């Protein structure tokens, strides 16, 4: 187990470097100038020229290396070792103000949101996306497993058909329809939940439910299949012969095996739930990270694209690692 973790952690920087190179090359190729605005007043040619020089947008190799050294913390390390940071601190103290914030892993300024550093944007949005994604996965697990078990106990019964139908609807309906419908019913007509925004537990219910539906549907199908397989296995017959109650047989013996495919699905599903919530973020005005993916690309905001991609790539690798570890812990047969 320790070997696995160690191996993956050594692979991590290599994977990230490859992703960084590919993403930056692609983002660089997006047509348009990141310093230009989609509408309205445009900066003059001199300004664009000056900004390009300042952000090193005039040369791909220069940008590639300077972003890499600043995002990986090498710049910070260099500044600390050369005593530059200490000098700045002294200057600020002499002037009697707090020194401007410096980041160890500096992801650069956002080109579109002039006042914000990508670090701040990510620090603000990442917890939101994580919480929303995890809650959705939790809800999906509860709904999905319940529906799956009900379906498997009496295959082709009305209950099974009903869960199948709900699952189908969950997968097929786009989230902006579900989201808007839920908002209309549970926030405007019956004002139980807030219309949108972030910061209250009640505000998490509608968006997390909307986000969870496609996952719940998939988990339900996985569980149902696994359960039907498990319920015909010999060890279940043994368990029943022992005189165990049906509940114990189902939940303790059958579900344990049936859950394994669900568990392996959880890794990518959780990552997807955290990144793929763009539409839901929009409908429910949730300040998550998903929107920055899309907006970053649309505005060719290179720093934002790279920052968000790097963070997510790291998370994805760590997630898959976590699932692998969990898998081995639950099922010791796998080595």
């Amino acid at each position, binding site marked *: 187990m320790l070997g696995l973790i160690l191996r993956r952690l050594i692979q991590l920087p290599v994977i990230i470097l490859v992703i960084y190179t590919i993403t930056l090359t692609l983002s660089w190729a*997006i*047509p*348009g100038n990141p*310093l*230009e*605005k*989609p509408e*309205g*007043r*445009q*900066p*003059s040619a*001199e*300004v664009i020229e*000056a*900004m390009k*020089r*300042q952000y090193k947008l005039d040369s791909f190799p220069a940008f590639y290396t300077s972003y890499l050294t600043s995002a990986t913390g090498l710049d910070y390390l260099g500044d600390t070792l050369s005593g530059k940071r200490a000098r700045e601190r002294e200057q*600020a103290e002499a*002037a009697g103000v707090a020194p*401007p914030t410096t980041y160890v892993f500096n992801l650069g*300024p956002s080109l*579109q*949101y*002039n*006042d*914000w*550093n990508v670090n*701040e*944007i990510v620090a*603000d*949005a990442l*917890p939101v996306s*994580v*919480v929303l994604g*995890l*809650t959705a996965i*939790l809800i999906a*697990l509860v709904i999905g497993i319940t529906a799956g078990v009900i379906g498997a106990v009496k295959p082709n019964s009305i209950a099974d058909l009903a869960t199948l139908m709900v699952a189908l609807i969950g997968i097929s309906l786009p989230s902006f329809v579900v989201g808007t419908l839920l908002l*209309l019913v549970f*926030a*405007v007509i019956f004002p139980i939940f807030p*219309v*949108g*925004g*972030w*910061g*209250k*537990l009640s505000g998490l219910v509608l968006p997390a439910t909307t986000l969870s539906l496609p996952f719940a549907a998939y988990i339900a199908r996985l569980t149902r299949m696994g359960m039907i397989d498990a319920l015909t296995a010999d060890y279940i017959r043994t368990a029943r012969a022992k005189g165990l109650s049906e509940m114990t047989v189902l*939940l*303790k013996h059958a579900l344990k095996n049936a*859950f394994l495919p669900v568990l392996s699905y959880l890794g990518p599903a959780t990552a997807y739930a955290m990144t793929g919530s763009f539409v839901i973020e*929009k*409908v429910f*005005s949730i*300040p998550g990270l998903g929107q920055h993916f899309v907006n970053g690309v*649309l*505005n060719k905001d290179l720093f934002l694209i790279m920052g968000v991609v790097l963070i997510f790539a790291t998370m994805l690798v760590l997630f898959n690692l976590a699932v692998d570890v969990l898998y081995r*812990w*639950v099922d010791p047969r796998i080595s």
Partner: protein
Amino acid sequence: MLKLILPFVLLFGSIFAVVASDQPDPPADFTFINRGDVTTLDPQRMSWMQDLRVARLLFEPLVRLDVMTTDYQIVPGVAERWEISEDFKEYTFHLREDAKWSNGKPVTAQQFVYAWRRALLPETAADYTALFQIIDGAKDFFEWRSEQTRLYSIRARDLTAEQKQIESKKLWDEAATYFDEHVALKAVDDRTLTMRLEASTPYWLDLCGFIVFAPVYEPLVSQYEQIDPDTGMIKLQLGWTKPPLLISNGPFVLENWRFKRSLFLRANPEWWAKDTLDIDTIAIPSVEDANSQVLAFESGAVQWVSDVTADYRIQMLADKKAFYDENREQYEELKAQGLDAFAIDAALPDDPRKNVHALAAFGTYWYNFNCKPTLADGRENPFHDARVRRAFAMCIDKQRICDDVMRIGTPVASNMFPPGAIAGYESPKGLKCISDAKTPAEKQAIIDEAKALLAEAGYPNPAEMPRIELLFNSDGGHGLVAQQLAKDWEEFLGVRTFLAQKEIKVYKDDLKKQNFMTGRAGWFADYADPTTFLDLNRTGDGNNDRAYSSPVYDGLLDQAKEETDPEKRMALLAEAERLIMGEDLPLVPLYYYVNIYLFDPDEITGISLHPRLQQDLFNIDVLGDGKGRDEVKHIRNKELN
């Protein structure tokens, strides 16, 4: 089983902890949804409408424009009085003694010089730097500095780190000296600011009320400036625009700003005119989705939606019309009393249908014609010929575009700017088009005239013309207008058309590089002078995407620049507008923009309906909340109805 459940219990616990630790802002007196997310609160760098709107709450420039008057009266801001020379070139402002920053320190003339100098540095990337270059010597300084830093960055490649430190510092000292010596902007003492302009500029006072001309608190901002030894430019560190650091001098102070979540503002106890405020706190939540914005209003979470873009706004406006029809008699009676539109709404019976408001905005939607002889790919460009442009501009049924495509009450545009937006200026009559025809015979006459123009230009058979390409961007509903336009040209002229739909960045790029035949565009005015639109068609202007170049037109604008008699000046500008709207047609205006608001007129007052549609939210009063005067505010001088 426990093994399986344990991780999830832990997860749930941490989710709860994260959400519980994330406290939202308290409820505010007034809550509204801005046009979009605020990108910056640095006055000199901003240009988005949503940024300007919030900045007007936080900062105060020399003068203010009173948006609750029909002629946008200029009233004292930080300056309590001012003198203007007869030729509109020399301005002296006297700052009031009680103008203070939110930390209690006085606002000084030197801080204005500092802020405006920032706007004139190319590295600040101020979108409105051109407006500051009206000051004598400012343009020269801007260009000089651009050149100096460009040369430095080449020189710096061969310098050692230590040399760079010294050299870049020297470069900056030179720039500061150059500014003091060459730019005619001076702080005579702490409370007197003088400036000399390059040319007579009667609208300069109006500009001094524009929020990008607001001062910034030098002791704070200068701490965030650093000289970059590699480029020699001033590099601004981020952070000073955020609470609790931001120090401002306007009606409100920034208490909280969370990216893409919300802003929270509180009345500034140090503001000299704080007694005029009728509310204490303003919250600006970020709600991006068009439908969610309307839902937020209907659930009572917000009191004003400043830009309703949900598709069903068309239905909402139809409902409002039905509401007026039901109360026709009372409506006419109130109108006869001279009440403005919001006051009429407030007086009518309570009904949710009356909460939607369509207002004419100071902006125009148009199609550009590429005026270059050849297209970017070398093909011949039929629109190089003004007669072709005129023919195409005539053969548009603008009324049909407004009535059948837009359906939100946009007025047909026959000129560059909406009537009544600029005091003392009247647009000449624009070129006639299909929708001006009252009878089929008149319509045929217009078509015949257009076809004759095409024949003159060498296209006797329009069907054989090169295929006409219409460039537009995919989002924002521009496709429908393009389709209707293409249909008009096919129907009336018999030409072949092609709809070139592009992603916004590509579209923008194509416009800039003149890689189009005709392409959609639009413009909102910055200040109350015709030049805010007319300058766009000057030869070589950065926003002249049409590549239109006419010595006569440029000459008229230059002449107007020298003219010191305001009336004669306006006549020259009107002649320039006539030239492009009646003869040369580098662009054809389709309609004037309309802005749709959502608010309950029985609850909110202090929103201006002047066509410039600037909203100064320190005028807002929430009726019946027991704070402030709680009286309906009318726009003064009733002409506007």
